[in-house]
């Protein structure tokens, strides 16, 4: 029963990550992504998925899907119904699942963040309904599989487990909120483990939307650069397997890292613009630190939301300055959106996995195309690939609508 439950545990469980899956424009899986982020490779190219000839921006970070999906429990018919977003989700989840070593279970929560779900199917539905209204072929399937909960169910069927599905859609904070929500479920019960992450594929509507807002860069996406002129879109997915430390130890699992803090709140300033002083951003970073029992002095790396828009980056820079205080002068910060673009509902989850990579492999992901750091940044922006001692990493995610989230991960050694 979800209610009533026994009172929340007074002693929260420690929550560790025992599996991580990732697909971005840098590649499929941990290894190519780690290599790409470590060297600061950028993965933008002309958009091929839809026509952008009449848009201001022409490029994005498209992911390369494998020619065939890996073997799962899905039937050929089910596989044929997967759209691009669902395929990205399945690929990331399968990697996390395999790495975790979990067996199929009956009550395993799946918590996902997305902003667009199966948007490409919705677009196809709309085009056919307008252009060929009396043709019904494929429309019922599109109407169902467009919905993110149906895409999530495909993951359950593919991997052979069952459990509650929760779809969080707090715009670009969705992925971080999904992981944070899973963490809370495990930390205080009732769950002992959960799969959580985020996914989004490029779609014409969303690309056009950001282009209409003139939020897309027409040059190069350069978060925190004084001459930045906008964000670049990308696509991908990331999923992590979370479980209590006791559970992981009991089966001698390989622990990738520990999730130790999560803060979230809502900025009511504007639907699409952050508060100029980053008040809510600062608040969620402080919340996460308080829960994690760390100070900015203990944080070794910040993976910023850093979209590359003028308003976001200046607001976030002020918030980081204020939150970090004197530590700001030596606190390494970067935005990996410089490499793979803004993954929207997947961003928070992908960036959490990037933090895991920095903790596991002890390097910092650079923004190699950054030219002139914004003077508002009182912190050093990582510009060159380098090894580093990283014990604690913080990841920021903020969304349209104002939901902000921060996750703090700790190295497992």
């Amino acid at each position, binding site marked *: *029963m*979800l*209610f*009533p*439950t026994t*009172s*929340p545990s007074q002693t929260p469980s420690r929550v560790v990550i025992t599996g991580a899956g990732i697909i971005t424009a840098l590649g499929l899986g941990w290894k190519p992504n780690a290599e790409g982020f470590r060297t600061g490779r950028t993965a933008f190219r002309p958009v091929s998925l839809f026509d952008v000839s*009449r848009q201001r921006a022409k490029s994005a970070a498209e992911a390369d899907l494998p020619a065939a999906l890996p073997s799962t429990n899905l039937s050929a018919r089910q596989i044929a119904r997967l759209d691009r977003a669902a395929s990205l989700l399945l690929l990331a989840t399968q990697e996390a699942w395999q790495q975790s070593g979990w067996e199929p279970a009956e*009550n395993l929560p799946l918590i996902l963040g*997305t*902003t667009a779900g199966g948007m490409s199917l*919705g*677009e196809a*539905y*709309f085009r056919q*309904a*307008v252009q060929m*209204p*009396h043709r*019904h072929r494929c*429309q*019922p399937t599109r*109407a*169902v599989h467009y*919905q*993110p*909960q*149906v895409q999530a*169910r495909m993951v*359950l*069927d593919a991997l052979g487990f*069952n*459990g*509650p*599905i929760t*779809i*969080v*859609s*707090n*715009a670009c904070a969705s992925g971080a*909120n999904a992981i944070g929500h899973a963490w*809370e*479920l495990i930390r*205080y019960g009732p769950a002992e483990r959960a799969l959580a992450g985020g996914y989004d594929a490029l779609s*014409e*509507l969303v690309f*056009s*939307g950001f282009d*209409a807002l*003139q939020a897309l860069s027409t040059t190069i996406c350069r978060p925190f650069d004084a001459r930045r002129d906008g964000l670049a879109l990308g696509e991908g997915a990331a999923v992590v397997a979370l479980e209590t430390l006791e559970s992981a130890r009991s089966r001698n699992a390989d622990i990738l890292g520990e999730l130790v803090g999560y803060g*979230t*709140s*809502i900025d*009511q300033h504007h*639907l699409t613009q952050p508060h100029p002083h980053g008040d809510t951003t600062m608040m969620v970073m402080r919340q996460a630190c308080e829960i994690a029992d760390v100070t900015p002095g203990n944080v070794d790396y910040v993976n910023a939301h850093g979209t590359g828009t003028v308003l976001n980056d200046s607001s976030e820079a002020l918030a980081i300055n204020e939150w970090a205080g004197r530590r700001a002068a030596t606190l390494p910060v970067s935005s990996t959106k410089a490499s793979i673009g803004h993954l929207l509902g997947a961003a928070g989850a992908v960036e959490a996995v990037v933090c895991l990579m920095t903790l596991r492999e002890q390097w910092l992901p650079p923004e190699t195309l950054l030219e002139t750091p914004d003077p508002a940044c009182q912190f050093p922006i990582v510009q060159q690939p380098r090894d580093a001692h990283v014990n604690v990493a913080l990841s920021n995610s903020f*969304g*349209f*609508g*104002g*939901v902000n989230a921060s996750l703090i991960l700790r190295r497992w050694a």
Partner: protein
Amino acid sequence: MSRVFVAGLGAVSSAGWNVVALREALDKGDPLPTQPMERPGWARPLQARLVPNPSVRPEFLAHPRLRRTSPITHYAVATALEAIAGLRAARDSKHRLGLVVCLQSGCVNYSCRFYDETLKDPATASPLLFPETVYAAPASHVAAVLEHVSLASTLVGDPASFLQGIAVGVQWLEEHRVDACLVIGAEETNWILADALWHLERPAVITGGAGALCLCREPELSAGVELAAITDAHTYSSGLDRMQAARAMRGQLDQSNLLEPVRAELLLGPAARFTPKAFGAGCRPATSQELLCDGLGNNPRADAPELAAWCDWTGPRISPKRILGEGLMAAAAWQCVAACDAVASGRFVSANVSLVGSNQQAMGARFARDDSGISHLSAGGSPGNIRP
């Protein structure tokens, strides 16, 4: 074990812009009239139950954040303000408020308009429309209007997800992260949504609107109703079809309810004794003081699992969708609002909500009378359409 109370309710539906209008329509029991909805390329329009224009323009629409917003936001804000009115009257506005907005279809009006403009010429697609297409837009606007929202989230899923939204609100309350939590289910409608429903459930009549519950921890803020149970989410999968999930939900709700007859008799005396009927394993007798608020529409195929799960139910029941229309997540919220309202008005000791979602899960909940609070929700009324 903690207790969670309902501090207020809100509803916007094809019946009107408050809970009273919803109650009156349900009591009357007649399906509300339908209106034509034009569908491009078709001579014959689809039918929909549209939310009527409010008799007086709501004051909240003057809020600067609500300029250019679409109907779903108007519905969500209206229900939020109605549901929170009691809480605001009872204490100053400095409570920490949580907000969970649940959607299935979401902001379809501006999504269609914006994509239509994109297809015609992306260079002239309106930047004012795009931000209103995101699922998170209504929650953002509600938070801006209410101000003291400290925690907010938007959940997407099939209609049973509304109970997941309530469970999230309960979690925030139990962890003392908020003092009260609004849970809103909202939808708007347009021709493409009606077209999609026509493909999937031809007898259904699409509608829009919203419903809201304001949850709290403190008994003194209770409107006379408390949350008694929420079942697990019985997720459909290759190993669990809708029929099996609906049965599992029913069984779990019954298991959680074994003490309810005792409670009914304590509260209402011997008149509340149970109707003598044999029940199968795992089931228990219904009482005339216990309402079933189900999610049945007018589609035999879609309704079959829920009908089967409750085939032995002998108590009174009500089916809001048959009167108000298929409101997706809003309809799930109306079920909960109607259940709480029936209990708060003193007509029932408890009310079960059955949600057998279209493509994700079956979930159930029960709301029960809380005698520690004073009901300010309802002036009561005759059972009307509630079928014995």
